[in-house]
């Protein structure tokens, strides 16, 4: 399967080509190159998956881990080396499909969405870079290669959030995203170094004796790695960058900030899962609590936001919280005994990528139609854009967890895993699932039903998006409709053995009931033109409403800590020291040299004969000194 190297090489070549020659190419040609390359990558990924899973299981009943390509990149001596290579195992092959498929859809969609934008070629070049780095991240053979590509996706995310670089908010958002995730990656790097130092390798599966030596420090290393994952996956309190990242073009939000890059943290935990479960179950459970709190927080905030992309951003944070919880509640590697969450998390990652990309692309069509992100500019759009309406509804039902859409199956597995861990966790996550249904349908009704902004719509009549934008919607909606029926446990499970998903109907009926309740509540509050109930509630709990609208002032807390404490108490004195002591010493040297030079410059009179006398005097003096010395 050596051809898998092409999966990384093709988008890289496309990035180089479009990056260097982009301005020479016409926009359509540049976009065409990017899209064709991504289509080739998608075909290759599907073919890889087909042949990998088609090859069947080995004698012990698991899919073999293949390394079709590997090279030692940086040997450190002492057996420690960083490799670059390609590793195929069930989750990396699954991720290949997710990334290449969503990326292809986004490439096609961008033809319509970005039409006529300045920097169209640059946009496609960055998309190629992102695709290459994300694919490299998931097929990494070792933790350090993963880290390298991890930073590369961070860079491409930065570049794409700041795509509209003339817009102040976009620049600020891109910097914020980069700095926050970079700060978290510091933890990741330290974790990797501890891991590499004590186990003597960067491999995901070190030898038993190496692990024995590092046993005491493994929980620390894994915990630090999780901090990196939490930064990328926008876990509380490092989530602050993701809502702002919505300043980027909407297809980018769909690709990077909903479907692929933000689940890198989940993928990281899944990748380290065997170590987590054997050596650091406590840390794993901590991640579950972090995930649960994040899911709850983001769901509450999503209920009151008015910018549709921000609602989707918080919904993404909440759903990633679900995935982390599912991993965190695992208590053993056996899916029958308590390892169900692993499969559930990966399944939810897969289905969520599809329907969340669909939601974002649908939101892109809506923004394209009304030229605004605010709900107040929308309402009643179902008449104008029927196709977007239907596909958006499919995605909303799926994320709410309605049978038989894909979200139902994956969320049901997560809830079942939570109930096995502890009833309290199960009840909490079921409640959040209900909240999810509520805020998604609040969003849906506010866009497509409710009170129409007639003045705006008369002035500029909303229209259905062009074909290049609706085809990806239809494709993703179709995937969302059928993905739940994939026997996912047969491909991915915590111990690698085939696992039959059987729906636990007591859990499923409760979650369906809660989801239906959330949808009905949203219908009651937001379907009609007047919103007396919703406005009444907002007025009644105005303090809570305002706090939630301002995201519980977490950004302000960060602002306070960075500006008032770190900048004022640490950075300012350090800057003073640098400016006055370090620079001052150098300035003093320069000033003294200058003063002395001014004093003696008259000696250069320009008269040759005066110089000659000085020269002779010096020579005679030397002679006398030498004679006396002898």
């Amino acid at each position, binding site marked *: 399967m050596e051809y898998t190297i092409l999966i990384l090489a093709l988008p890289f070549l496309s990035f180089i080509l479009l990056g260097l020659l982009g301005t020479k190419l016409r926009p359509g040609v540049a976009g065409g190159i990017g899209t064709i390359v991504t289509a080739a990558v998608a075909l290759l990924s599907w073919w890889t998956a087909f042949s990998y899973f088609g090859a069947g299981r080995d004698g012990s009943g698991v899919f073999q881990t293949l390394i079709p390509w590997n090279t030692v990149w940086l040997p450190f001596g002492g057996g420690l080396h960083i490799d670059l290579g390609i590793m195929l195992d069930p989750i990396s092959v699954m991720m290949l499909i997710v990334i290449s498929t969503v990326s292809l859809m986004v490439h096609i969609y961008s033809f319509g969405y970005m039409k006529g934008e300045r920097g169209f070629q640059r946009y496609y070049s960055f998309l190629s870079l992102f695709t290459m780095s994300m694919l490299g991240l998931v097929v990494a053979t070792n933790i350090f290669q993963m880290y390298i590509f991890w930073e590369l996706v961070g860079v491409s995310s930065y570049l794409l959030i700041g795509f509209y670089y003339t817009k102040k908010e976009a620049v600020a958002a891109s910097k914020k995203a980069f700095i926050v995730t970079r700060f978290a990656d510091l933890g990741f790097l330290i974790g990797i170094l501890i891991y590499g130092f004590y186990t003597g390798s960067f491999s995901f599966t070190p030898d038993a004796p190496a692990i024995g030596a590092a046993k005491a420090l493994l929980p620390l290393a894994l915990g630090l790695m999780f901090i990196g994952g939490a930064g990328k996956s926008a876990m509380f309190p490092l989530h602050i960058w993701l809502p702002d990242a919505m300043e980027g073009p909407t297809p980018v939000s769909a690709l990077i900030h909903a479907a692929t890059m933000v689940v890198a943290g989940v993928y990281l935990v899944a990748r380290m899962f065997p170590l987590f479960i054997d050596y650091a179950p406590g840390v794993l459970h901590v991640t579950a609590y972090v995930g649960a709190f994040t899911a709850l927080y983001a769901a509450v905030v999503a209920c009151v936001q008015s910018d549709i992309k921000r609602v989707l951003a918080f919904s993404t944070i909440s759903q990633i919280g679900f995935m982390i919880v599912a991993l965190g509640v695992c208590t053993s590697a056996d899916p029958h005994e308590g390892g169900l969450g692993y499969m559930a998390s990966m399944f939810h990652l897969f289905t969520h990528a599809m329907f969340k990309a669909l939601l974002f692309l649908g939101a892109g069509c809506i923004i394209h139609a009304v030229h605004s992100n605010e709900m107040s500019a929308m309402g009643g759009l179902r008449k104008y854009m029927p196709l977007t309406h239907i596909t958006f509804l499919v995605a909303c039902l799926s994320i709410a967890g309605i049978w038989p859409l894909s979200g139902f199956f994956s969320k049901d597995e997560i809830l079942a895993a939570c109930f096995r861990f502890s009833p309290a966790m199960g009840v909490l996550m079921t409640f959040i699932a209900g909240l999810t249904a509520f805020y998604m349908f609040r969003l849906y009704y506010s866009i497509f039903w409710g009170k129409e902004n007639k003045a705006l719509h008369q002035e500029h009549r909303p229209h259905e998006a062009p074909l290049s934008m609706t085809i990806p919607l239809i494709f993703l909606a179709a995937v969302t409709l059928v993905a739940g029926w994939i026997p996912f446990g047969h491909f991915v499970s915590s111990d690698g053995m085939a696992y039959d998903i059987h729906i636990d109907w007591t859990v499923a009926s409760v979650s369906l009931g809660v989801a239906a309740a959330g949808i009905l509540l949203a219908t009651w509050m937001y379907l009609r033109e007047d919103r007396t109930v919703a406005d009444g509630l907002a007025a009644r709990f105005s303090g809570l409403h305002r706090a939630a609208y301002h995201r519980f002032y977490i950004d302000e807390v960060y602002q306070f800590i960075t500006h008032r404490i770190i900048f004022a108490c640490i950075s300012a004195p350090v800057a003073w020291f640098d400016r006055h002591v370090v620079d001052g010493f150098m300035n003093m040297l320069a000033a003294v040299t200058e003063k002395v030079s001014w004093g003696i410059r*008259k000696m*250069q009179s*320009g*008269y040759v004969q005066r110089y*000659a006398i000085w020269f002779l005097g010096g020579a005679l003096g030397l002679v006398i000194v030498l004679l006396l010395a002898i």
Partner: protein
Amino acid sequence: MVHMEYYLIVSTIMMFVGIYGFFTRRNLLAMLISVELILNSVDINFAVFNRFLFPEQLEGFFFSLFAIGISAAETAVAIAIIINIYRNMKNIQVKNLDKMKW
């Protein structure tokens, strides 16, 4: 037989005459002549030491020839410079040449 010391006395006188001339002449050409005197006194020294102290060797003579060649070239360059100075300043009095200072 002329002793070595007599040659050295002549060359020393030439040397200091040259130095004196270099310090006191007002004219660039006169200064150039003084420099030539200094150089020639050194050439004499080379030849004399070779002739009296190491008669079976030739390094001193050849060094003299070498220095004569170099000084001819150097004189040509110096005269070219002096001609240019004259073209620019209409005289070659050394006291006027104080442009290159500070």
